[in-house]
């Protein structure tokens, strides 16, 4: 159904499933259609088992999925991925593929803890993480824009530098790859903000329970500040990209830098701002990740554990749209939360090592099936203005 012959009428109600069908299946390959159909069927079956046969295996899985703690964990785990994904969108839209998001998360996670430890305030810690991540992003920007480095390799270097530097500094300061424990972000109900904190704990007039006690969705009202920052950042990023002059410049810088240059806008400056912005956003995500736990753990792949790379897939899957990126982030984080709950409850006696790989394998499958997104046409290319030199 194209928009031209669409006449609003009383049949709108009937058109809704039709539109949903179009959205899910139209214009897709056989394999994608099949996977979407199977996923839909599986979700429906799971809900049916959950409602009608709660004692069955599928029913118990449904109970795990709908536990309030699962949503809470999903939101918490979404924060670093979503922020890094937003940052990645800005950088890549402007023509700089920032594969070093993982490194930005790592350095921000460590600095967030260190700054909190020194200042005693989680908010200063968050700021410290943002500063560290932005500095590293600045280095990446200079290397890519000024010195025409290969963006992929420079991004890998950013990751490896952070992967070495954070455990190194942790060993210097705390005598081991894991830092000391510091304060964590309080939840909304515990923050003691006059109207809001009372609002979420007081019973609602019609329902009779407090918002925090609502099953499943209650977690939305009892999260830490980073979760609300995440929603705000997604909305702001969407607005900035789609409704402001800066957003148009960023897109033009990635799609047709020459045109932007001709219009009198400095392409290099737009790219610098976009990459620095990706540093700021990833910094919030990384610091929030560490401050949610109150410790930085730096063994092996560190506590960030691939979240920066998952973020890249999240925004590709979300087709560079901040809202889409948030949705796919919630999918990956939801899988991670589910596997954590499965491990903790030991419901099915599944091998934890293999369950842990579910989010990673999903990322690969999603990338293989839906990864054919169109990159900004100048992404990865160096742009040299004719006026330089």
């Amino acid at each position, binding site marked *: 159904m194209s928009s031209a012959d669409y006449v609003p009428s009383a049949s709108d109600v009937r058109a809704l499933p039709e539109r949903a069908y179009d959205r899910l299946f139209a214009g897709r390959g056989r394999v994608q259609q099949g996977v979407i159909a199977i996923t839909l069927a599986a979700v429906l079956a799971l809900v049916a088992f959950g409602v009608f046969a709660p004692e069955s295996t599928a029913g118990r899985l449904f109970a795990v999925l709908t536990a309030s703690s699962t949503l809470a964990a999903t939101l918490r785990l979404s924060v670093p991925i979503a922020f890094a994904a937003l940052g990645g969108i800005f950088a890549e839209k402007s023509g700089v593929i920032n594969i070093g998001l993982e490194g930005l998360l790592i350095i921000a996670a460590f600095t967030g803890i260190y700054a909190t430890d020194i200042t005693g305030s989680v908010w200063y810690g968050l700021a410290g993480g943002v500063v560290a991540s932005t500095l590293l992003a600045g280095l990446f920007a200079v290397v890519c824009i000024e*010195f025409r480095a290969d963006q992929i390799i420079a991004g*890998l270097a950013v990751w*490896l530098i952070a992967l070495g*530097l954070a455990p190194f500094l942790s060993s210097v300061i705390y005598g081991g790859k894991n830092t000391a424990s510091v304060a964590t972000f309080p939840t909304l109900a515990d923050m003691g903000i006059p109207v809001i904190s009372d609002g979420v704990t007081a019973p609602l007039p019609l329902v009779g329970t407090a918002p925090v006690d609502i099953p499943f969705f209650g977690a939305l009202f009892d999260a830490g500040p980073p979760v609300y920052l995440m929603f705000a950042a997604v909305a702001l990023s969407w607005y900035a990209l789609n409704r402001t002059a800066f957003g148009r410049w960023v897109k033009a810088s990635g799609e047709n830098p020459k045109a932007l240059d001709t219009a009198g806008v400095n392409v290099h400056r737009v790219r610098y701002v976009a990459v620095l912005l990706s540093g700021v956003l990833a910094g919030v995500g990384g610091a929030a990740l560490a401050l949610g736990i109150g410790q930085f753990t730096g063994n092996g792949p560190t506590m960030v554990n691939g979240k920066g*790379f998952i973020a890249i897939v999240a925004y590709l899957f979300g087709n560079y749209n901040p809202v889409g990126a948030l949705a796919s982030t919630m999918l990956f984080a939801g899988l991670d939360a589910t596997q954590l709950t499965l491990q903790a409850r030991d419901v099915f006696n599944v091998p934890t090592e293999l369950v842990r790989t579910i989010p990673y394998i999903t990322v690969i499958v999603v990338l293989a099936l839906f990864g054919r997104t169109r990159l900004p046409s100048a992404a990865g290319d160096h742009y040299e203005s004719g006026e330089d030199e």
Partner: protein
Amino acid sequence: MSLSQRARDAMGRLVRASGFERFLISASALLLSVLIGAVIVLGAGRMTSCGTAAYTLAFPGSFVTQFTGGDAIFAMGFCYDPIALYDLLFLGALGDILNDPTNGQFATTIAETTILLFTGVAVAVAFRAGIFNIGAQGQLVMGALVTGVVLVSVAPPLSGLGVFAAVVLLPLGLVLGAVAGGVYGAVPGALKAYADANEVITTIMLNFVATSIALFFVSREQFFKDPESFANQTVNLPDAAMFPELVFRARDDVSLLALGFGVAVLVGVWYLLRHTSFGYDLRTSGLQPDAAEYGGVDADRTIVSSMALSGALAGIGGAVYVMMVLGNFQPGVPSYGFDGITVSILAGNNPLGVGFAALLFGILKSGSIVVQVGSDVPPALVGVLRGLIILFVAMPEFFRMAGRKFGSFHQTGEQPVATDGGTGGGVDE
């Protein structure tokens, strides 16, 4: 034309030759990384606390004040001494090599070098085909796992056969590692070729998956866990399945045979890339994918086969790690795969250059143990150097600009040397 002018011209010509420029860039990148590493060490020395300063920056320095008397006008103490640190890192790795060429520390250096030869050349092969194989780590883990668990069940009945057992078991282990790593490398290759999935992401994800799979199989007694050990590991392999140490002592876990095999593999890969039609297809796909396809190269198949080859080389590295160093399989494999990326980039993705870069990194890895024992500086510093080296090699333009500013080589019509093997390349071009 004066002599200095002529020398300068000759120098300029040399620098313009891409192979030599490559070498200069790698050497400058290394030097710059070491310098910045020293600054980081000094900075870190200010962040920690210690009784007496290990290193003091003063103006005027002690060299002057010892004659003139009095104190320095400005002095700042640091807890770590970068010069002593680099002494431990680079020279410590060689041990007392003049008096005892087979000392334990040098043996460790050789062992590390041997494994880095394989991961380095694995990454280089993929780079040459225009593919970023960040998954050498996962491929090495799979190669090591399969070699370990299969040899554990195959080796004991054969071990009574003496030399004959080694003749059968060593090649078998290498083949097992190659097959496992090759299959694990072909998967992201196929995903890239036929589903357009970015190989950087898929290979990194597969690294995580490989670690989990390895842990799964060796942490359960119904599979391959040694029931008599508290640690997660397989039963030890019999001696017949281990590389013979030849000159070195048995407890140093090093083998000149494995090193020789590694060098032979480097030369083999160099020959393959340079003198065979497969190598030609692989290189043209990396340089000019469109031109390669136009010239009749099956691009998809080249991607899969170069990733399979790359994975197989990393997998052989895993097999050597099991049969030379560990003697069984244990999860928690050191980051040979990531070091392989640096080795390859430092070597300009040239298989023969990998030999030198691997030796350098073998020294760094082995030296970091000396640093851990002999100083307070955390050995994680080597990880920082690894990242810095990649960063600086990735920005040849920086060194060209610096060269233009300080030197007087006028470069006309230069061809930028890309780090991904896209253009330019090593001396073998």
